[in-house]
């Protein structure tokens, strides 16, 4: 029987290798986020104070929409040639596949955030008044909140006819508490207030939804 962590590592390595070769997800996410930054910067001309107030919302909405682009492609390679069936007939555990996909998406979205954040800072002249290191925690917890549910719902909508539409329909409502926490935490750090409560909320959200997704994924994977 293969070790679950080994399968997760192997599947993650395979996904990263395929993405490195095709750059499908990262290119579309980058292009989309870049568009959002440019369009928003033309739409508003905020002063420093206004920037701090609205930047949290702008940044996370841009990342959420960009993440959906990547999440929609998460399972595309597994559906092509029905490779997912080869996984299902193997003794590899379902949760190893789920974790590999979620971690892969986490890496893609974090790379996107690392590339796009300097642009946001530049376009909106952002300078955090609070502890900037807290933004790293918010980014990590917030991104995980998006990708863990996104990976799960992308798998759920696999067998639906219009899955590109289905994913945001399922993902956005359930992401509202996480999105609220991410936006508030970011705004607080930028404005010099404490973000601890929102970080705690994000952490709880992540724990609850990661557990729920792990408990339910096998059923979703084997659904007909």
């Amino acid at each position, binding site marked *: *029987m*293969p*070790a679950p962590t*080994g*399968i997760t590592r*192997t*599947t993650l390595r*395979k996904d990263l*290798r*395929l993405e490195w*070769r*095709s750059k499908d997800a990262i290119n579309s996410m980058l292009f989309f986020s870049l568009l959002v930054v440019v369009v928003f910067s033309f739409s508003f001309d905020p002063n420093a104070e206004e920037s701090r107030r609205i930047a949290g919302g702008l940044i996370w909405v841009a990342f959420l929409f960009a993440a959906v682009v990547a999440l929609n492609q998460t399972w595309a*390679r597994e559906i*092509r*040639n*029905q*490779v997912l*069936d*080869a*996984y*299902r*007939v*193997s*003794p*590899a555990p379902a949760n190893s596949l789920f974790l590999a996909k979620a971690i892969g998406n986490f890496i893609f979205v974090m790379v996107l955030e690392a590339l796009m954040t300097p642009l946001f800072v530049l376009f909106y002249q952002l300078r955090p008044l609070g502890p900037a290191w807290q933004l790293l925690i918010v980014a990590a917890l917030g991104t995980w909140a998006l990708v863990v549910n996104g990976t799960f719902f992308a798998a759920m909508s696999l067998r639906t006819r219009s899955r590109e539409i289905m994913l945001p329909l399922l993902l956005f409502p359930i992401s509202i508490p996480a999105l609220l926490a991410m936006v508030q935490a970011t705004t607080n750090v930028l404005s010099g207030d404490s973000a601890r409560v929102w970080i705690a909320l994000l952490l709880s959200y992540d724990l609850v939804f990661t557990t729920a997704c792990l408990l339910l994924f096998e059923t979703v994977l*084997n659904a*007909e």
Partner: protein
Amino acid sequence: MTETAPVITVSNLIKQFGRFAALRGVTAEFSSRKLYAILGDNGAGKTTLLRALAGLSRPTSGQISILGAPKFHDICHQVGYMAHPSLLYDEMSAMENLEYFARLYGITDLSRCADAIRMVGLDPDLARPVGQYSQGMRQRMSLARALLNDPKILLLDEPFSNVDTHSAADMVRLLAGQRDQGKTIFVVTHQASLLEGVADEFVWMEVGQIVARTPDLKQPGVTK
């Protein structure tokens, strides 16, 4: 398990897709070390039966017991499955594909991947991605993937489709050899003549039922 003991027992298997019954009470026993050719028109239920045996399709009612185990997951490492699509990643080479699937089965000796590729008459050093293979080469790679875990039972759906006559004859010889080494093989095919003189039994299906089992290609009761 004795040589003649059934390795697969199917009792009153029914599979419905909505109101359409793809399998209508299939009951059968299949002995070990035999090559079964499953024949029938489109929509007869051949692929549905194979997918049910492979644990990919949950029966609406009825039981399947493979190697004495009622749950497919308990014996999945002893089953090899080849579907009509290749179940391979188009963007990866033959070796990369098989190395990934080998790890899913906990196979640590990766030289088995090269052996499996050679067994089907392909070159393991070919760096070209599988997506650039001809349809026939892809079919043979798909067979290599099914053979990778050295399964006791092989379930093959249309292994000869789009394969040239010479390669198909090679595949038939390989399957006969595998049967002689002790494997039980199920081949769903529309090219039954390829298996004449090789298959131990021809299983005829019609509208979701097994209607005849014959030692040769002559279907009893058919006068046309």
